[in-house]
């Protein structure tokens, strides 16, 4: 392949952009899914309302990154889109059902007339968030574990995802999202609720470190190429500092959680862990988009399609990030009840 031509570079640019979009999604929807999972830990209705308040004005935007991911994959890497989704048919659809239930629960839970129905939608919010998070991990794990492809089409079975590694990834991602949710709430709430969330953030941090460790050891064992990626020059340059950085973040995290003064640092540390895990994963599977057989070039739409969408993305994505940041800015600051509830 000609390394100076558009057919070589456009897929690389798009792979980076797509990875960025997925990371933004994981971070943004991660904390609001995690917040839903934390409903289990927080039965008090006033507290639950406060938790939802912290994301109510922004959750539609968070979920939009997922729609963008689907659309971009469809337009830019159609062969990957048409392979991954049939291969992960059941996990994807279960995830979508879960996201539907929890999405409407946002709106419905406060509008129910009876206590029983309110509790029912609160349960829906929790279960939907949990299942969506687990399924996203399963999807990731299946992809990393490899999907059987022949002639650009999926040829595996519909239950291939039901294997130890994908399921473990499901638990790991759910755990990570819950940590993001807990640290987000440490940032955005006060008093009792914040104290509870600090406690949870501590427990979940320990779990998260364990999970990162297990996945890091397990992944290279999946494929010989992954093992090489961790030992080959020059990739080792990117890989070697990762464990060090994870530990540094852990120290910062635990000090901040104990310190009681810093509200934002735990969330930033959790983001750091996600960023490191995510980049580690990217380095692992590069340049495959559907390991072990389909590279980003195999999966690509023609350059005319990729270039057309790229022009828009380069102009619009910075704009989108700007007004999204503005929306977060408008609703900044801790939420609180001030002794006022709306019963």
């Amino acid at each position: 392949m000609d390394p100076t031509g558009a057919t070589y570079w456009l897929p690389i640019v798009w792979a980076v952009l797509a990875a960025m979009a997925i990371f933004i999604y994981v971070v943004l929807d991660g904390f609001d899914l995690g917040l839903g999972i934390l409903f289990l830990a927080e039965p008090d209705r006033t507290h639950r309302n406060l938790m939802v308040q912290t994301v109510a004005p922004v959750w539609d935007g968070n979920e939009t990154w997922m729609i963008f991911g689907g659309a971009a994959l469809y337009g830019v890497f159609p062969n990957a889109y048409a392979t991954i989704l049939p291969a992960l048919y059941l996990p994807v659809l279960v995830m979508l059902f879960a996201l539907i239930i929890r999405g409407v629960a946002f709106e419905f839970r406060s509008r129910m007339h009876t206590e029983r129905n309110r509790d029912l939608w609160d349960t829906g919010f929790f279960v939907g968030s949990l299942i969506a998070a687990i399924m996203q991990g399963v999807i990731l794990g299946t992809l990393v574990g490899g999907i059987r492809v022949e002639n650009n089409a999926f040829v595996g079975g519909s239950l291939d995802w039901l294997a130890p590694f994908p399921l473990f990834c499901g638990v790991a991602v759910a755990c990570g999202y819950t940590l993001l949710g807990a640290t987000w709430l440490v940032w955005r709430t006060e008093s009792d609720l914040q104290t509870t969330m600090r406690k949870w953030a501590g427990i979940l941090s320990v779990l998260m470190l364990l999970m990162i460790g297990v996945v890091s050891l397990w992944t290279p064992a999946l494929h010989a190429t992954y093992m090489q990626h961790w030992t080959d020059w020059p990739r080792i340059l990117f890989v070697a500092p990762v464990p060090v950085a994870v530990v540094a973040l852990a120290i910062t995290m635990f000090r901040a959680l104990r310190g009681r003064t810093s509200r934002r640092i735990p969330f930033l540390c959790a983001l750091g862990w996600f960023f490191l895990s995510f980049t580690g994963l990217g380095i692992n599977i590069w340049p495959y988009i559907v390991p072990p057989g389909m590279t980003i070039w195999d999966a690509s739409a023609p350059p005319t399609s990729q270039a057309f969408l790229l022009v828009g993305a380069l102009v619009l994505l910075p704009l989108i990030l700007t007004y999204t940041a503005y929306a977060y800015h408008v609703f900044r600051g801790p939420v609180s009840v001030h002794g006022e509830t709306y019963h």
Partner: protein
Amino acid sequence: MAGLDSLFLARLQFAFTVGFHIVFPAFSIGLAAFLAVLEGLWLKTGRQVYLDLFRYWLHTFSIVFGMGVVSGLVMSYEFGTNWARFSQKVGPILGPLLGYEVMTAFFLEAGFLGIMLFGMNRVGPKLHFFATCVVSLGTLISMSWILASNSWMQTPQGYTMEAGTGRFIPHDWWAIIFNPSFPFRLVHMALAAFLSVALLVGGVGAWHLLRARRAGQQPTEAVRIMFSMAMWMAAIVAPIQILAGDTQGLNTLKYQPAKIAAMEGDWESESYAPELLFGIPDMQNEVTRYRIAIPYAGSLILTHSLSGKVPGMKDFPRDQRAPSYVVFFSFRIMVLLGMLMAALGFYSVWLRWRGRLWSDVLLQRAALIMAPAGFIALLCGWVTTEVGRQPFTVYGLLRTADSVSPVPGGAVAGTLVSFVIVYFIVFASGISILLRGFMKEPHVNEAAPDRHQPQRAAAMAAPISDTIPPSRPNREGE
């Protein structure tokens, strides 16, 4: 036969999910525009009643928008799960259009929706109005992209076919987006969305007028304004929609004659063709039974000339005919409802002229019955255009049977059943919440926003919640 079954199930699943979905974006398009008008009127005139109405309909908007987002999320992945081969071949063309829709519309809507729903006390009225307008603009941009995509599937151009793979390779984006049926379809859909919401608003207004009459009370100003605005919309937009539908029909005749033949239930191509008011098309025996026909009307409507030649289904091979027994009826229901809407509009104008707009019980009952008519007509219109495109996904080029995913029928059946159950629970709850909201009167004299007042829990978590007593939207402010 397993392949055929999973094809049928995949089609059923798509029809079910997209049918549920389309109602909500259409609702959002119409309602966002209505909200922008109401807020604009409030800012311009300073009259409290417009703010009351704005808040009243904002309740509905947050629910409708949320349901549109979650049901739309399904659509953006369903192309891949159920229509993988379609995605592979058409992704290079439709994918970027969908990508632009997300970047230019979905983010815009989602980014400003929070401010629109919760931000009145945080950003001040002018910036809030700006946010409302941006959300409304977003719904319109979104509609434009999705209709460009759909229209391309009906009247494809601007592509070359890749030898060997059968992929569609874009070579002229302008031609792809502005394909021949796009402008007509866009106008028809936009008007449909506005009309659907107008009729719903009119129905809600009528319900409150009828209730006030039964209780022996005078209807409130908010109810009267709501009803009056809706009836103006019906009177003005319904006739325009009939004209727009007519031009769309001419366009379809030119580019998709097979669809027209199926819609009309005509088998032989002929001049001086009649228009069938009723009939039962029989695809097997190539005949339409129990016909009730108006002589010459078919040619007149479709070609605007008595002698115009109209296509028949026998012009096309059997394996390229759309199922007439579906589109024949869906088309007629849509047209009938359109006529009734125009009649409602004209009747309201006459009553308005006679000074009886708010007192005529017949008009109110008619408006109440017609409340869902716009949405039903809209669904019938989509059924007509989508089923009328069969047996192709890309008209004349890519067959539906060659578009489906290699997923076993059992998996598709299982998820179809799950969709039916989940959608039933979710949308039944949503609709019951909406109806309960409609049965409440608009709150009178809600406190005007005050940006200097601290934003607190009650106002933020549930500014639009039923749980706040009508006269006390910001209790802590008292």
